[in-house]
């Protein structure tokens, strides 16, 4: 193990990342410059995914650019029915936002159920989206909210959620780009429900639901599912079947949610088999729809 005797005397093979240079810029422009110029540079947000990967040496960046010096990236702003969330907003901030619960319950649910309190205090929405874990909670929520990602780089561009998540740990973000904001319209009838792995709290199956209702009838639905495939996907069959269903008709909701994973290559691993995940997707989807039918 590489070690500088004067400053770092640890015996054994503790989980020590490889060396890197650390920067804490004070503006997005400065961060972008460092990202372009730094050797093997990576953004550091809450560190709750990146640092564990660095400790395992799965990630070995040579330059870390800590965004905490750019606090204007952390905010939740509403203008009419339109919300803008800064990428550096912590899960804990979102989870404690009562207004968000009413206006976009799906995001509030996801923030509350993510990991544990310590992870929520440091981890950020931008980091979780950029990390694009196939079992991550926010990707499904972003898809169901039809969110838009604002990305800073050589020029600023907007990427729709449906284009943002490309694969396992893979997004539309280029190497020299920073996710600055996420925008979406209010979704007062929305929810996110997951069946979680008991130890890690990651979703075995997670379903985000955004409903448009007229009185007590579902007019339209966007349903997005995480945990099953490489990327979250829309369950378009379920979306169609839900149209016209009454919000209090549990049996009709259940039958509309049957086959939620249809057409997907559902993952199986040590945590859950493919068949189990597939079966649970229907049940979790129905639960999420039922939560979303009521005002939050």
């Amino acid at each position, binding site marked *: 193990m590489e070690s500088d005797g004067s400053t770092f005397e640890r015996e054994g093979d503790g989980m020590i990342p490889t060396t890197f240079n650390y920067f*804490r810029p004070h503006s997005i422009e400065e961060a972008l410059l460092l990202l372009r110029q730094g050797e093997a540079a990576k953004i550091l947000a809450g560190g709750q995914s990146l640092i564990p990967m660095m*400790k395992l040496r799965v990630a070995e960046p040579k330059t870390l650019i800590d965004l905490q010096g750019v606090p204007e990236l952390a905010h939740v702003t509403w203008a009419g029915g339109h919300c803008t969330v800064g990428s550096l907003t912590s899960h804990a901030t979102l989870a404690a936002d009562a207004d968000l619960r009413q206006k976009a319950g799906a995001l509030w649910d996801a923030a509350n159920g993510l990991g*544990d309190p*310590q992870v929520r205090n440091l981890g950020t929405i931008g980091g979780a989206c950029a990390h694009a874990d196939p079992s991550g909670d926010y990707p499904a929520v972003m898809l169901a909210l039809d969110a838009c990602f604002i990305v800073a780089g050589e020029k600023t561009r907007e990427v729709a959620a449906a284009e943002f998540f490309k694969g396992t740990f893979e997004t539309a973000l280029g190497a020299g780009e920073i996710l600055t904001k996420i925008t979406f319209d209010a979704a007062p009838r929305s929810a996110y429900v997951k069946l979680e792995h008991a130890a890690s709290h990651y979703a075995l199956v997670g379903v985000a639901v955004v409903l448009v209702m007229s009185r007590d009838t579902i007019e339209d639905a966007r349903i997005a599912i995480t945990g099953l495939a490489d990327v979250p996907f829309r369950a378009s069959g379920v979306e169609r079947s839900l149209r016209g269903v009454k919000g209090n008709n549990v049996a009709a909701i259940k039958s509309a949610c049957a086959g939620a994973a249809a057409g997907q290559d559902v993952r199986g691993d040590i945590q859950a088999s493919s068949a189990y995940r597939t079966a649970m997707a229907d049940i979790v989807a129905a639960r999420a729809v039922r939560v979303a039918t009521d005002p939050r």
Partner: protein
Amino acid sequence: MARVEVEVNGTRHELEGVEPRLLLVHFLRERLGLTGTHIGCDTSSCGACTVLLDGKSVKSCTMFAVQADGRAVTTIEGLGSSAELHPMQEAFWAQHGLQCGFCTTGMIMSAVDLLRRIPNPSEGEIRAGLEGNLCRCTGYENIVAAVRAAAAALAAMETPKTIGELVEVGGR
């Protein structure tokens, strides 16, 4: 090498020559000698390494010391002294909220953060609030009882103090 200026338990420390990859938990234990913060898993799972960063619980094994530059850290050593325990420490002792004690310091720091957010938590809220902390001895029953007792003790104080105020008077 970086320079780190951090307030730990009310005392300002300025350290030169900090390697950016030095984790906060090693900084606390090895540079400052504050060994009350434990390393249980080193994989962000167990919460034994929990400290407060500007009053909020974080896993110090999943944070670099340089990230704490300019901020305030509270460790178990900052809560109370053996002469005068913090109400949370008192409650863990009185309710037998520990057996081997390895998880206890992290458990107490998380419990302090929980009462900051929810001064009078239900059993469910206590269990959810301690979700990031694992204990292999107690079965959690007495830990939950301890947090309840601490919440009651704080509520019954003659000059009521919030848990946050108590943390600030710590570090004796």
